[in-house]
């Protein structure tokens, strides 16, 4: 089932003509990154910090291409000031955020940022969607991509640890 939704997510991005996928990795994004790297439709770009991906997405749209930022919840805090770019310029924006510190977390150091992720994103002007199962993930990403690039919306899809499963220690 895991492989199934990840494959569907990959093809959904292609359907929306997303061609750039900047990322700071997380285990929850690993399969998608790998599928993109093994195909010829979506270029991945490894980042040194998540805020780089915010600026990259905006630059790509200046040039007419769709880019989606992949990160984990701990990276959201790194992005906040850079996200002023999205708000000021009404850039379309979508990020897929794998959650840590939210449900069944072993590493307590992940908890403060995980618990603050939704509030931080909303405070800087993004709409957040929390998804806990594959069906709602696919429907939500589809809607987020459509409204971003059709009507300048900005949103973050928060992928719950209920969807991703617990990290084994």
């Amino acid at each position: 089932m895991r492989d199934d939704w990840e494959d569907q997510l990959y093809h959904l991005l292609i359907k929306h003509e997303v061609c750039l996928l900047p990322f700071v990795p997380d285990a929850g994004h690993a399969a998608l990154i790998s599928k993109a790297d093994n195909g010829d439709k979506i270029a991945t770009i490894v980042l040194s910090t998540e805020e780089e991906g915010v600026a990259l997405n905006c630059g790509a749209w200046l040039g007419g291409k769709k880019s989606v930022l992949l990160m984990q919840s701990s990276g959201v805090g790194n992005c906040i000031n850079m996200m002023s770019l999205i708000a000021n310029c009404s850039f379309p924006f979508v990020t897929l955020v794998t959650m840590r510190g939210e449900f069944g977390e072993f590493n307590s150091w992940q908890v403060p940022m995980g618990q603050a992720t939704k509030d931080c994103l909303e405070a800087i002007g993004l709409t957040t969607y929390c998804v806990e199962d594959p069906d709602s993930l696919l429907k939500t990403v589809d809607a987020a991509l459509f409204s971003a690039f059709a009507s300048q919306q900005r949103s973050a899809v928060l992928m719950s640890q209920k969807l991703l499963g617990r990290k084994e220690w």
Partner: protein
Amino acid sequence: MLNRRDVVKKIQSALTAHLFISGLGSPSYDLHAAGDNPKNFYLWGAMGGAAMMGLGLAMARPDQKIAVLTGDGEQLMGLGALATIGVAKPQNLAVIVLDNGHFGETGMQQSHTSQGVDLSAVAASCGFAYTCTVKDAAGLADLLHQLQTSSGPLCAVVQVSAAPVPRSLPILDGAELKNRFRRALSLDPL
């Protein structure tokens, strides 16, 4: 020392087909003073983001050449972007750092580049295809030649005087800056 306004005017005059992104503060004022153009995208904030916007634009438009004008303060905040660009290796991207060694907008505090940090060497170690430090008119002439002929990514640190120059303020409305830029590329404004 080189005057930043003269440097940017010469760069803009030489690179008539380039798309420009300028970083917040003086680089945006310099680009505006050199001549407003819909193909200039001026940042007023989002410190650290200019080079990465340039990378996104360069990857989206491999048919175009992109020049990012930024300052030492901004590029120090976006130091990791040099690593990201060095790995992504866009051949059509140039990052030009107008290095006055100071944070000009906030009281002229010394930045790291006044105290030994060499951004050109950082870019070289990150894998940029061409890097240089420009200190005089001859170096600038060589840079203009490289910008037109060399394959990127290119990083040039241009050492400029910290003497104040009058502000030249571009449009503040970010949505308008974005929409006119896209229109200039024959894209729908949005």
